[in-house]
């Protein structure tokens, strides 16, 4: 067999193995994502569909005075959620990596079980915890921490709390995977050389798990930017996020081009950290892809 023939044969077998996933994802993932950008330049159709004309009106209409504040809220809530979640998850991962193997297995299982239960049910459960007559409110009133007429539900803080609750396992898993590989004798060495516990933690441990931190950061930040269910269920009017506006545009206003334009904005907002991440992860063997840690 001549050389070009071998080459062609290799390419054919490569393509036949790759084609199912490549074609499926090109048609049902890549193409629809690109279509969003195209539809943003379309007018609104008569029966809630997509119009035939190309226009800039849709893009202009989303420059509504409310939207910059909603986009800004989406960004700050997501950043606050990511920061707080990581601040809680790093010490947890540190502790999990240092306990006995048996204890570690138990803690892992306890972390995983709640996120195997339906996402909506967990949020719904929070709703009854935060309910005006729920036990948390009564407890806080009893401690004189809140005013009896204060509401815990339907405010940005409630959204943040439930977002942290939902995202914590996604931060703990990659951080734990990194902490487990960390050589704790370095930590002890630093302390032998006179570093305080806190100093050793921040100067030795935290940089040592940088990879895990980066993936945990992304794992939390991106779903937060796209969150819609949590603000919808536990948030009020002043906690609407970009996702809520997109859903309202799609299902209530039936304005698909405007929903597409807002989704395009969302894509751009979330693409920035993603690009940064993919650049940092360019591994030739493609092994550094913990994704949502396959458990």
């Amino acid at each position, binding site marked *: 067999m001549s050389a070009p023939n071998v080459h062609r044969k290799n390419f054919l077998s*490569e393509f036949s*193995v*790759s084609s*199912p*996933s*490549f074609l*499926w*994802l090109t048609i*049902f*993932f890549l193409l*629809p*994502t690109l279509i*969003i950008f195209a539809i943003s330049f379309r007018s609104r159709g008569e029966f809630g*569909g*997509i119009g035939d004309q190309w226009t800039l009106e849709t893009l202009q209409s989303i420059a509504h005075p409310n939207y910059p504040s909603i986009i800004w809220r989406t960004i700050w809530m997501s950043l606050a959620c990511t920061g707080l979640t990581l601040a*809680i998850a790093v*010490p*947890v991962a*540190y*502790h999990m990596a*240092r306990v006995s193997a048996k204890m570690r297995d138990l*803690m892992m299982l*306890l*972390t*995983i079980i*709640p996120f*195997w*239960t*339906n996402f*909506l*049910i967990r949020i*719904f459960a*929070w709703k*009854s915890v935060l309910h005006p*007559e729920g*036990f948390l409110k009564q407890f806080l009133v009893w401690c004189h921490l809140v005013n009896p007429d204060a509401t815990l539900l339907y405010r940005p803080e409630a959204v943040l709390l439930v977002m942290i609750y939902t995202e*914590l396992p996604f931060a703990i898993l990659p951080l734990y995977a990194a902490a487990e590989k960390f050589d704790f004798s370095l930590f002890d060495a630093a302390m032998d050389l006179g570093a305080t*516990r806190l100093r050793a933690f921040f100067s030795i441990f935290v940089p040592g798990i940088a990879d895990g931190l980066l993936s945990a950061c*992304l794992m939390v930040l991106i*779903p937060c*930017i*796209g*969150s*819609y*269910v949590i603000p919808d*269920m536990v948030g009020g009017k002043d906690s609407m996020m970009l*996702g809520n506006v*997109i*859903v309202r545009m*799609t299902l209530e206003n039936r304005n698909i081009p405007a929903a597409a334009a807002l*989704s395009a904005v*969302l*894509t751009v907002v979330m693409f920035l950290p*993603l690009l940064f991440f*993919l650049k940092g992860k360019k591994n030739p063997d493609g*092994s550094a*892809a913990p*994704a*949502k840690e*396959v458990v």
Partner: protein
Amino acid sequence: MKDRRSHLPAIMTWAVLIFFYIPIILLVVNSFNANRQGTIWMGFTLKWYEQLFSSKGRDIWRALTNTLIVATIATAISTFIGTCGAFALHKYKSRFQNFHYCLIYTPLVVPEILIGISLLIFFMALKIELGLTTIVIAHVTFCISYVAMAVLSRLQDFDMTILEAARDLGANHWTTTWKVLVPIILPGIFAGALLAFTLSIDDFVITFFVNGPGTTTLPIQIQGMIKRGAMPLINALSTLLLAVTFVAILAYQMILKRNQRNAG
């Protein structure tokens, strides 16, 4: 020797674990609470469970059937596609595979709402009617990546020289693939399929966009019940689902332990 470890991480860890269970415990307790609002304890009852199995719960069971149909089909398709994708990524190193890798990896990190809305717009633009088919297509789309990653991580742990050894000993391509390669990566395929199945059963956001009239899945049904305020029924249903999940996890852990023992 003086204990140099701080107790703070231990305290935080246990606090977080308790935090994880606060809403879940409350939900289980409330499913037996005679109080409709679920705020104050008003005595033990099983009436919510009875209602769940009476005519009031009929929609729930229909939704559950839809969910299981969608999950089974989506798991079968995505397991096949994802496994092929993982093989391609592992075997070939080329520019095309780099792009292929990005294509498989990106859906894992794109917010669900974007996948949902883009598929909805795509189906609308092509005038495809929304229903079980569109739900299955959407589920396959996000499950492929998880399956591919699960299989890929198994492939990367595997010593490929065994395949050469099999060929040197006279096995043909077909035998090598089916008798050597597939059995070794089967746990990866199984883990991927299980993940796809759970993700499909649990998905709300993407399904919310692409479901049609009469094709309600369980999460969509639950959302409707929450909106209508049918709280006690959801508590009862959630407790049952929790129990099922718990048994499934225990079974999975036992299989995993046995596999590890066999492997090591």
